[in-house]
């Protein structure tokens, strides 16, 4: 049934996927290096904060990746509930893991920055509090994903958490506008004047761009690991269920099939 053309297509698909992954990885390394040079050498220190202000170039990109990751989780969760295709669930899971990583990083970097500039590692201001809640929501999301259940049911629950949890993202972003806070408001404004020197703005934008590439690379890697995990699971189940591995992997894309774990 599966002719040589089909096999060739599959092989080519795999090859290009891996090549795309490598090119993306290379781009990410180049962009992050450029960002490091701009942040640490080219960009001047801040008049008030001196070298501590350089944390801007990694703190803001980390926070941006948190927003981006959870927006992708939201979109992928909606797409999963509409199509019931497991690949959307896989994307949501990959993006949530990367999002949790960068939310934690944004908090840690902010804390390191807060000590010399604000005078404290932590304070219960609205931006910090809502961000701590954001981290807990998505750690919870990842925990829900570990519940032993049928893949379809687990994916459904995860999608619901992924959609509802996203409500905190705009709250985090607007917290500094809505409520009194210690955390500063927006420095870059789309309308009106930004309060940052052009060279520093350039370093910040390159930082945001390079972190975005890093996000794409990490999600790509995580998706591949996710597919491999499913493959391993299918191979383990194949003799017990008496079904060929290929069929089990394909079934994983259909709703309500293959019960795993329990």
């Amino acid at each position, binding site marked *: 049934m599966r002719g040589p053309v089909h096999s060739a297509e599959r092989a080519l698909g795999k090859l290009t996927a891996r090549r795309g992954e490598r090119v993306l990885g290379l781009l990410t390394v180049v962009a992050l290096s450029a960002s490091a040079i701009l942040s640490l050498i080219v960009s001047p220190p*801040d008049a008030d904060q001196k070298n501590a202000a350089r944390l801007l170039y990694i703190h803001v990109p980390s926070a941006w990746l948190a927003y981006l990751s959870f927006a992708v989780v939201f979109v992928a969760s909606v797409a999963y509930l509409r199509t019931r295709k497991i690949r959307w669930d896989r994307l949501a899971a990959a993006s949530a893991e990367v999002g949790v990583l960068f939310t934690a990083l944004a908090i840690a970097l902010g804390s390191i920055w807060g000590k010399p500039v604000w005078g404290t590692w932590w304070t*219960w*201001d609205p931006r*910090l509090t*809502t961000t*701590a809640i954001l981290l807990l929501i998505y750690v919870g999301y990842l925990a829900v994903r570990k519940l032993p259940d049928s893949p379809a049911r687990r994916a459904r629950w995860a999608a619901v958490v992924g959609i509802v949890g996203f409500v905190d993202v705009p709250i985090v972003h607007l917290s500094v506008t809505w409520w009194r806070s210690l955390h500063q408001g927006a420095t870059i404004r789309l309308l009106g004047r930004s309060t940052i020197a052009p060279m520093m703005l350039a370093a910040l934008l390159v930082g945001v761009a390079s972190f975005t590439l890093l996000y794409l690379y990490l999600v790509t890697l995580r998706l591949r690991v996710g597919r491999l995990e499913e493959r391993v699971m299918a191979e383990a189940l194949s003799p017990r269920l008496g079904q060929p591995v290929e069929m089990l992997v394909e079934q994983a894309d259909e709703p309500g099939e293959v019960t795993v774990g329990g």
Partner: protein
Amino acid sequence: MKRSRVILALAVIGASLGWVAAKGLAGSLVYYKTPTEILRQGSSAVNERVRLGGYVQPGSVKRTGTTISFLVTDGSTNMSVLDTGGVPALFRDGQGVVVEGFYGADGAFHADTVLVKHNGVYRPPAPGVTPTSADLAGNG
């Protein structure tokens, strides 16, 4: 066995969420009070632990021993602050600050923590000025 472990993890996360929401948002929605608000509150404000926010009135900072005194202003009302906990390096005239402590019966705000609110402006130092990281070592 595995299920109970995950449910335990979820319970811990849920409890943490509740704790953060209670601890954080209770005080966060009004993260600090202005001098005007504390004075308007009258005697009920005395000895209640709060955060006071405003700007350091230029020319008001005096240091005597380990105590730093200054005026915090919101533009219309000034409040005298006596701080014994030290101040961050960026503390200076005109700076936005959030001060933690209590408003005393003596009419002064007794603070143990002074936090500096950065205004979100980033600019290089003036020509000829070489900044050193020692400037940010802090004295608090």
